[in-house]
């Protein structure tokens, strides 16, 4: 089936070439980082994780959200999603690939990465994160590939695939839960030290992922002869609507606990993010923008008229995606480190090379996504006889 | 599948030839030019000592394993004294024991490592007194 990714229009090849150029720039910057050390980034002794880990966290969510199409189809026999499960699974593959790469570019000694296997340490959450991420990657590759191949050959998928599909459902939940456990089990970081962190991660994931999938479905409809279907998109829109509401609700729960209890170690981080602390306020406009975007998206998604209108739906999905990205990809990690455990404020701003490396990793993800979607869509066209 | 005529025969074989050419290029380049094995120079102190912490043959073949074990026991088990096969005691320290005798790192360690094209990262942290002074 791979050959499908190699045959495409001039536009397709142009897009691939553009991605490769971006990857090239990112890779050059990575070589610089490899040579010099992580000092070329904006990270510091006080904010020791930055943009890379934040992107990783956000993308784990996008990856986990594949379960939102897999679960209704396989557990509730919601037939309509049969058309797009493969798109969800391939989105997960591309996202997990990016997650793993973001962890890798964040390492100070990347050549020693296999020490994690050589000296397995079950008490470290990172050890489990490695297992669940790689497991999820392989599950989705195996499931997606075999289901698609069966569809192409017009036969039922092999029976051994079923248990793997059922396994992939809790597994999707596990990747984001374990990722939240990376942060929420740390004793000295009041911002993350909350049992609702994993649920919050999941709710924002189930908003951002399906919102992105809706946008992709519309793009596929526009660019190819395969139509993922209006019913499918509308069902996904309802998922996004519920998830973004729950996400904002969880956030407000957090706000209540923190500000009603008034425990400084928990409160100061939110104060820093939304009002600034000791004159440091780089993230304040971003965080308010995130809140406004999420509220706007709730209005657009809950209201049936704007949800059913595909133009406003696109706007809603973009606001969800950007709003949750700011929340998780910018605020969530920096916010936990400011102020530091000694109550000093060191702000974090990513540097140009750091952003170039991040964009490079995103471009690798999009390259994987493009190739996989091209394969999936070509086969869908072939099967339905429209090509 | 019915047998088909091979298309683009010329291109396929040209491509293959280029691939094989690239593959064997490094071998051709170095053909008959094998560098002679380096001769290690021992410092006077090492010569006088006659013997390293273990036999010469063992050290030549296994010094990397020995150093690996040393670093594990020193750093992780807090045991810093090595008692060799004949009961002699040594402090397990690269900079302070090994380099004390083998004071010519360039002549002793580097020469052979360069020949074997290995770059152990010992020296990223461990100090060679000669190079820092």
């Amino acid at each position, binding site marked *: 089936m791979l050959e499908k990714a190699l045959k495409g229009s001039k536009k397709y090849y142009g897009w691939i070439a553009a991605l490769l150029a971006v990857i090239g720039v990112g890779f050059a910057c990575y070589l610089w980082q490899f040579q010099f050390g992580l000092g070329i980034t904006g990270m510091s002794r006080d904010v020791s994780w930055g943009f890379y880990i934040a992107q990783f966290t956000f993308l784990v969510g996008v990856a986990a959200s594949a379960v939102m199409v897999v679960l209704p189809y396989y557990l509730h026999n919601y037939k309509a999603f049969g058309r797009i499960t493969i798109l969800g699974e391939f989105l997960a593959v591309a996202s997990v690939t990016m997650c793993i790469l973001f962890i890798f570019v964040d390492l100070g000694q990347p050549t020693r990465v296999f020490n994690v296997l050589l000296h397995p340490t079950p008490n*470290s959450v*990172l050890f489990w994160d490695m297992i669940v991420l790689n497991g999820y990657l392989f599950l989705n590759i195996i499931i997606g590939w075999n289901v698609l191949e069966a569809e192409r050959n017009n036969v039922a998928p092999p029976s051994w695939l079923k248990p793997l599909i059922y396994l992939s459902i809790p597994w999707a939940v596990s990747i984001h839960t374990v990722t939240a456990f990376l942060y929420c089990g740390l004793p000295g970081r009041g911002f993350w030290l909350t049992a609702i962190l994993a649920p919050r991660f999941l709710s924002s994931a189930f908003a951002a992922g399906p919102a992105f999938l809706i946008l992709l479905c519309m793009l596929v409809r526009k660019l190819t002869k395969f139509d993922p279907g209006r019913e499918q998109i509308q069902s996904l829109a309802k998922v996004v609507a519920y998830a973004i509401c729950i996400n904002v609700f969880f956030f407000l729960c957090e706000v209540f606990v923190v500000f009603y209890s008034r425990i400084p*170690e928990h409160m100061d981080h939110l104060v820093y993010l939304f009002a600034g602390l000791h004159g440091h306020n780089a993230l304040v406009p971003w965080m308010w923008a995130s809140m406004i975007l999420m509220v706007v998206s709730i209005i657009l998604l809950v209201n049936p008229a704007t949800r059913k209108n595909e133009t406003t739906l696109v706007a809603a999905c973009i606001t969800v995606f950007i709003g949750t990205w700011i929340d998780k990809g910018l605020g969530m990690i920096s916010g936990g480190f400011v102020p530091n455990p000694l109550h000093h404020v060191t702000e974090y701003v990513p540097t140009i090379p750091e952003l170039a490396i991040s964009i490079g990793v995103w471009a690798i993800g999009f390259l994987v996504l493009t190739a996989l979607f091209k394969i999936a869509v070509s086969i869908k066209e072939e099967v339905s006889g429209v090509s | 599948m019915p047998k088909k005529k091979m298309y683009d025969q010329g291109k396929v074989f040209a491509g293959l030839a280029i691939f094989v050419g690239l593959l064997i290029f490094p071998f051709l380049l170095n053909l008959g030019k094998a560098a002679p094995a380096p001769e290690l120079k021992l410092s006077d102190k090492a010569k006088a000592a006659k013997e390293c912490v273990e036999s010469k043959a063992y050290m030549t073949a296994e010094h990397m394993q020995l150093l690996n074990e040393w670093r594990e026991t020193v750093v992780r088990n*807090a045991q810093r004294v090595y008692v060799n096969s004949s009961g002699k005691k040594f402090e397990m320290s690269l900079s302070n024991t090994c380099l004390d005798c083998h004071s010519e790192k360039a002549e002793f360690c580097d020469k052979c490592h360069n020949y074997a094209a290995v770059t152990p990262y010992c020296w990223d*942290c461990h100090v060679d007194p000669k190079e820092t002074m």
Partner: protein
Amino acid sequence: MEESSRRTFLKLAGFSALGLGAKPVLDAFASSGGEQSKPMVMKGADALKAKRWALVIDTRKFESEKDLEPMIEVCHKIHNVPKLANKRHEIKWIWTEEFKHIFSTQTHAFLNDRVKHLPFLTLCNHCEKPACVRACPTKATFKREDGIVLMDFHRCIGCRFCMAACPYGSRSFNFRDPRPFIKETNLKFPTRMKGVVEKCNFCAERLAVGKVPACVEVSKGALAFGDLEDSKSKVRELLSSNFTIRRKPALGAGPSVFYIV
């Protein structure tokens, strides 16, 4: 190669474990200089030993930064701690903080003037239940039998999970090659390389040869170092005769550094 090295290491490890039980016998062996079939490893004869090392800092004996400088200086000098001008890349093993920072959960607005302006020595607490050790995915940071929390720089992959986990901000990361920033290199101690985390090691290398930590040595009696499990030790004596505090007690990490305020 990897396989065989692991096997030999296991043998060695097993051998040294055996050595704990049969130490007197083996010691006799070693000193007799007789023929032995297998090499072995052991602690130095002068090594200081304890069940749980602890440090008591008598802050009443300090008045200003000046009194603390010698301790910081000697530590950073003997351990080849680089001095980086860029605050973001700063590396420190022991330094000073004001009360409101080091004891951020115990401060209030009406502290007496002495405590309010007094610099406090800040370093790794060598916790009883270290969060950094729990977080490390490679056991590059680990707790030794004598309670010291150490770094194995050979193994650290630079993921900085330990830095996020440490509730005391005790850890530094080498954001770049530290060597150009070390004024005078102590030839007896290694430097670090870029991409690894470092922190105070309670002078493990000095304890191994029978010396107390360098900061304690130059403290003119203001710092006491000893075994917390030994009721007759100097630190226990100080703890029983003075009121002491530890940092962030509510976290339950169990710091081994105590402050007499």
